């Protein structure tokens, strides 16, 4: 009986709102991340938005968490790549900016610097000829900041490598400059451990995909 009481007390305390919320948070995040992982580059922009909505709801209930805002922002970046025209792409990226700003008000970290760079890259891709001047430096700034904040994070290397991979050699891109960075990213992915199971892990398959274009 004594054991039972102890367990009960433990259970009751654990079942306090704080615990409930955190479990609810864990669960909601896990589900939404699972839903996000089922998406790929062929998914329609509306699917990215639907999943971003889940993170938006979590963010609404969790004012102190940067992760749901980070993921909502990330999904809108994907939307920014897959939107049907420049206006739609920019609308998605405006949303991504909004969530990034919210997340940065809660925490400043390497993953948010990566997101910052990713948004800049997506903006640039909408109209490269006239936007590189503005977003090129923003992209590099985000990448450099992320590298400085956490040298073990493979994602800034992935972003920089992928950007260079699709930049013509005349402009300083191509496999010569991209592959060393992608190899670095792959090495970092091999040892990278997210802080929790809710923290970002994406990018490994993208690196592997890009590395196939590199000379062995």
């Amino acid at each position, binding site marked *: 009986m004594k054991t039972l009481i102890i367990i009960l007390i433990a259970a009751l305390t654990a079942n306090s709102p704080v615990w409930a919320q955190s479990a609810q948070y864990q*669960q909601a995040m896990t589900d939404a991340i699972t839903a996000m992982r089922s998406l790929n580059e062929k998914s329609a922009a509306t699917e990215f938005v639907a999943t971003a909505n889940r993170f938006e709801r979590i963010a609404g209930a969790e004012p102190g968490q940067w992760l749901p805002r980070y993921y909502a922002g990330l999904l809108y970046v994907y939307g920014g790549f897959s939107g049907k025209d420049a206006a739609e792409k920019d609308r998605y990226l405006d949303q991504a900016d909004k969530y990034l700003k919210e997340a940065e008000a809660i925490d400043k970290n390497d993953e948010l610097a990566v997101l910052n760079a990713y948004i800049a890259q997506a903006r640039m891709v909408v109209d490269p000829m006239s936007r590189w001047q503005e977003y090129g430096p923003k992209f590099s700034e985000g990448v450099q900041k992320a590298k400085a904040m956490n040298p073990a994070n493979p994602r800034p290397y992935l972003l920089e490598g992928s950007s260079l991979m699709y930049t013509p050699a005349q402009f300083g891109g191509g496999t010569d400059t991209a592959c060393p960075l992608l190899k670095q990213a792959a090495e970092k992915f091999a040892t990278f451990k997210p802080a929790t199971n809710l923290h970002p892990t994406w990018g490994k398959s993208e690196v592997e995909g890009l590395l196939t274009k590199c000379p062995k």
Partner: protein
Amino acid sequence: MNRIYTVIRSLQRHVETQHLASQQRQQFCIVNTLLTPVRRKVLRLYIMLLLVPAGCWAQQIQGRVTDQKGQPLPGANVFLRGTYDGANTDSTGAFRFATSRKDTATLLVSFIGYEPFAQKITIGNTAPPTIRLTETANELNTVVISAGVFEASDEKRMTMLKPMDIVTTAGGGADITAVMNLLPGVQRVGEQPGLFVRGGAGTEAKVIIDGMIVQNPFFSSLPDVQTRGRFQPFMFKGTAFSTGGYSAQYGQALSSVLLLNTIDKGQNNGLSIGINLVSANVSYDQATERSSVSATGYYSNLKPLFALVPQNVSWSHVPGNAGSSLTYRLKTGKTGLLKVYGMYSDSWLGLATRNPIAADGDSPFVNLRQYNRNVFSTSSYTDSWNEGKWLLNAGLSYSYDTDATTYDTQDFGRSSQRMQARTVITRLLPRNNSVLFGAEAHRLTLSNAFNGTTYTLHDTYGAVFAETQTYLGRKLAIQSGVRGEYSSLLGRFNVAPRLSVAYKTGPYSQVSAAYGQFYQTPDYQYLYRNPNLNFERADHLILNYQVIKNKRTFRIEAFHKNYAQLVSEFVRNPDGTPANFDANPYRFPIGQTNNIGTGYAQGFDVFWRDQTTVKGLDYWITYSYVDTKRLFQNYIATATPTFISNHNVSVIMKRYIEKITTNFGLTYTFTSGRPYYNPNRTRPGLADSQFLTDRTPAVHNVSFSASHVTRIKKNLLILYATADNLLNTRNVFAYRYTPDGKERYAVGPTSYRSFFVGGIIMLSKKAKVNVSEL
């Protein structure tokens, strides 16, 4: 006991892993039901504690989300504030979700492109609500004030030009003002610097950098010699060229303002070196997170070009210039930004020019030389408060310019100095509305030495202005402003109202109208002799229609301008009889003057740009028509001024070929003939109606440019080549007569067909042109 323990543990685990997934909520209820037979009070209590929040007692919330017209909006996010309870709308706009909340809650709906919606609801209220969302303001549904404005910007997405266009346009020579000369509403004048807009003279247009008037925007020139603008296009993030009806924020320009906004942040590009046929320059850029510095230095000398391209004039002193600039930008906080820019340059030129007053026996040519020194600095500070609702824009600027001119053996001197300070405060209000107010003060000192006399004058000029932007719905916008100006030299004050209205006629089209009064202090050469003159005045009325759709732009604008209070000279011979018109471009007016000059200008211009129809080809066509007459300065009758061409056409084509990373440009311009003074038509006995009735032939020009980007040992290299007047047309800008009126001579470009090659190398691995595609 152990059994209970196991049950609790397994339940706990179950709850932990399956807590919120709504499809599994039913299972909770089943488990709950199955377990009820276990008649252990504690356990039941625990299960209740555990499961109640999950919501077996949950209420269903359902409804529909549509737009204002009742069309369903699938994919909208509907949820209760502060809870995890919510859902996305389905393809019919319907939503349905469960909540454990009781009583009341706030229902939130968000959807991209629509205003967020919030409403207090009573849970259990069975009537499923239909929520109608309102579209947020965007480029397709919100009108913008567009009359008279021609903008090149990356920040605003629906503009007709991009900053890149300025450097990729053939015939523009990467000179901002030269490219503006290709836009609708501009009359091209080949032999003088300046922007001649809709019947206005070059002096009626002002170049404004970050709100500050640039006293000497062009390299110093001699009559009949065209010069470049002083500023590099890459200094600016946005260019707005107003061909009339411009904002109350600006003044002192009867016809036009060219607004240039400097970039907020430099790039970490390191050292770059540029060499071309006539000049060499170095620039160094370094940026950190908070600040950036750019420094440039250049030297140019036209000698190598002159060795290759035949010249139409005899240069006694080959034109050249040398200069440097320094820019420093600092983020002073989260929102504050300080920019300081300074430049210094020297330039010189000398040529043998026609002596307009040569008497019999004199040489028809006279040697003219000029040496110019120019200093310009401007600094600006911008900041915002209260989440960007209050904006501050403040600036200080100083410029000093001096010309030392030798005409034959006589020395002339000219100098100008302008100090200015300016502050603008803007309050942004909901729904795109805004109000701004500001003030500026200038102190000018000018001096001019002529025939051994030095004239000096000082003017303190002050202005206050206010402007509001009001949106009546999304389709109708009104911008109204007023500007008050005072000049200590004139001892006069003026009040100038401005009004613009725009109405959206369709998702891609709009009409716009603008009216305004504009005042300008008369040309200072008159004020040396007569400081009692009044401001000159122009009234503009502009109607505009434009369609921007799918990277195609069509714009047509009609205008009427009325000129009043223009300075007029009493043109009299020493004996009091009416004198002939003096066409001498070097004349210094010394006669009596007043403000009785008048005039008008009317016409329309058309712009068409298409980046879609032919893949990879971007072309634009502009046509401008102006009908204008004036009686001003030393005109002896009302006439179309000599700087006017009634018809101007430009056709600009650009093509970027990715395979060879080369951009090609081809530009054709047509300028109809301009009036010139024929003294034989105004000899005594002939009517004044023949004054300025002769026309020069039309001017045609075809120019070509190519720029190629490559890499040498990891350093970025840009090579470019341009050719001007490919067809070697013998263009004539004006005709003049020898003093006896017997011989007519042409004033044309200093060279016909000419070409130019050069390159820029960026000596930095960091320097890159990011044309990343994914």
